[in-house]
């Protein structure tokens, strides 16, 4: 084996794998189906952008979790801690840069938000590294213990956040230039949601590129399919896994910043709350599948916003409803990962 990349055929003619296009149609189908119920086109645009933004943020948070599960069969119930951590770091960083965030200039705002995001990713990644070492490594392959131990990590993490930042809810106002809405024709679209969509797409594109066009990505995908085979070819999948775990935690940190700005406040419990949402998303997507996770996240985001507008009471249960429907259709999720 000189190089896995060299022996792989060009990506556009991969043998044997047929792209399953049906789930891709779900998104436009859902969006179009909602249009007649909503009635007004401008409202529909507003809701769709809002839903996509929410979905993108959820995707950023959930993608790491689903990869970690796919690669190492580890389900991290403590993932929520990294989300909360990211959001709290945003509070600290943005709080220290009020001069930049209060300014109307988009550039200055970005100069404040970017360091916040980088700090959140760096710290969440570092904590993820330690978390993997201390909490998860001793219990590989033991599901029951994993669930409990990561839950324990979650409890301790949440309490430590309370120790550092205090137990109260802290407001996290949007930087000045992110507030308000743009008018696209008749439709008002909140600026921050547009930004969220852009960042989400960028993350998705970067992730897609890494996974499908680099050797590391190839190894990760191969590891998700068959870990032992990759190991027997001489690759250290453990090391790869640590990398994926750290990257996943960093993404959760980034997602935490965005989720915090989206909610405009942070609480120590936010990790546990978002956890439920992202579990639903990765179940819908098929545990271990990044593409499924992306579609699942967008479906959840869109449906939450549509139902929130049409029948607010149902919106609280729209996720569960969606999960049940998807599982009735495909019991292993949208894109089942082969070996499970």
């Amino acid at each position: 084996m000189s190089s896995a990349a060299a022996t792989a055929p060009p990506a556009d003619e991969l043998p044997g794998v047929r792209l399953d296009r049906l789930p891709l149609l779900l998104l436009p189908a859902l969006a179009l189906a909602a249009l007649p119920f909503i009635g007004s086109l401008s409202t529909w645009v507003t809701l769709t952008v809002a839903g996509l933004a929410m979905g993108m943020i959820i995707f950023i948070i959930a993608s790491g979790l689903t990869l970690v599960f796919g690669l190492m069969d580890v389900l991290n119930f403590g993932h929520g801690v990294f989300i909360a951590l990211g959001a709290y770091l945003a509070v600290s960083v943005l709080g220290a840069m009020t001069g930049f965030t209060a300014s109307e200039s988009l550039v200055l705002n970005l100069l404040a938000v970017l360091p916040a995001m980088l700090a959140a990713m760096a710290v969440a990644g570092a904590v993820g590294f330690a978390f993997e070492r201390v909490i998860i490594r001793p219990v590989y392959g033991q599901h029951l213990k994993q669930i409990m131990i990561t839950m324990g990590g979650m409890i301790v993490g949440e309490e430590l956040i309370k120790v550092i930042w205090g137990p109260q809810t802290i407001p996290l106002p949007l930087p000045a230039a992110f507030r308000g809405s743009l008018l696209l024709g008749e439709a008002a679209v909140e600026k921050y949601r547009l930004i969220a969509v852009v960042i989400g797409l960028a993350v998705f594109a970067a992730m897609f590129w890494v996974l499908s066009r680099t050797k590391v990505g190839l190894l990760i995908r191969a590891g998700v399919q068959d870990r032992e085979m990759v190991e027997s070819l001489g690759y250290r999948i453990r090391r790869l896994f640590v990398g994926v775990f750290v990257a996943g935690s960093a993404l959760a940190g980034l997602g935490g910043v965005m989720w915090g700005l989206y909610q405009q406040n942070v609480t120590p419990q936010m990790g546990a709350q978002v956890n439920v949402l992202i579990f639903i998303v990765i179940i819908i997507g098929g545990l271990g599948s990044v593409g499924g996770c992306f579609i699942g996240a967008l479906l959840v985001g869109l449906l939450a916003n549509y139902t929130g507008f049409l029948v607010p009471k149902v919106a609280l249960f729209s996720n569960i409803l969606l999960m049940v429907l998807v599982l009735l259709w495909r019991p292993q999720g949208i894109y089942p990962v082969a070996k499970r």
Partner: protein
Amino acid sequence: MTLSRVLSGDLPRNRILTALLIAIVAGLALAPFVFPGAKALNVAAKICIFIVLVASFDLLLGYTGIVSFAHTMFFGIGAYGVAIALTRLGPSWGAVGAGIAAALALSLGLSLVIGLFSLRVKAIFYAMITLAVASAFQTLASQLSEITGGEDGLTFKVPELLSPGFSLAEQPFLGVSVDGKLISYYLLFAVTVALFLVMLRIVNSPFGRVLQAIRENDFRAEALGYRTVIYRTISNVLSAGFATLAGALLALWLRYNGPDTSLSFDIMIDILLMVVIGGMGTLYGAVIGASLFVIAQNYLQDLMKLASDAAAGIPLLPDLMHPDRWLLWLGILFVLSVYHFPAGIVGRLRGKK
């Protein structure tokens, strides 16, 4: 031996454990007389309720090896059943019975459906599904505010015999007035003992052995001819039933029920901690875990306050010792116990002999 029969042949099998258990049972049995004060009685009642709840969770987690995060849902159904029935039908024993019956029916049906749908798949999947269902149920309970009282919950009157105003005897008995509170406590205690013994009977029956076989190796259990899905589902339904009864006891004791007292995810985490710290796969672990946890919950904070005050001036340490951060220390204890003594306190004691 009669004692052995009562305990279904599952004796503590360790001197220290026996002593601890006797101390706990004696403490609970005599709580109103030995530990005066409303707070102490409340703690004792809470221990009783949590013993039933944690033991029922252990039936699922420790004996069958299923992780469910929907256990507080069934606890909440029981509590809401009694609360709603007593609010609607007035304080009578018939209402209590109707509430418990309705709650049991709902719990058993729901657990059957969840079990049949999702117990076929892996443990992880079940854990996630139950988490989602439980959070949806909690939202549902707070949304249906006409029935459940929403976030405020329901405050209601209990049958006269149990209400604090009721007095059985003019003269205090051994310095304790014989009022409704005392009667409720002893009712609670008696029901707890009965339910615990029933659960002990279940786990030590041939059925319980099959559950343990499934926990150890479900593939092999299936190969031996046991329909594991059915056993798992029955275990799920039984555990939900006992949790519902524990919830009913909670509502009767508090004369109040709201989402935070019975449905919240915090309670789910508490139960998980109690089971693991006490010892999974043995119902005595539930007794030890619940007692230790509830006592820590109520008295560790006082201790930590002292430590926090003592550490004042040192950076970070007072925050770590802050009384509200008691869960941090129990969380660390939980993580350590999953690693180093996965069988919990009871397993540790029994292992030593």
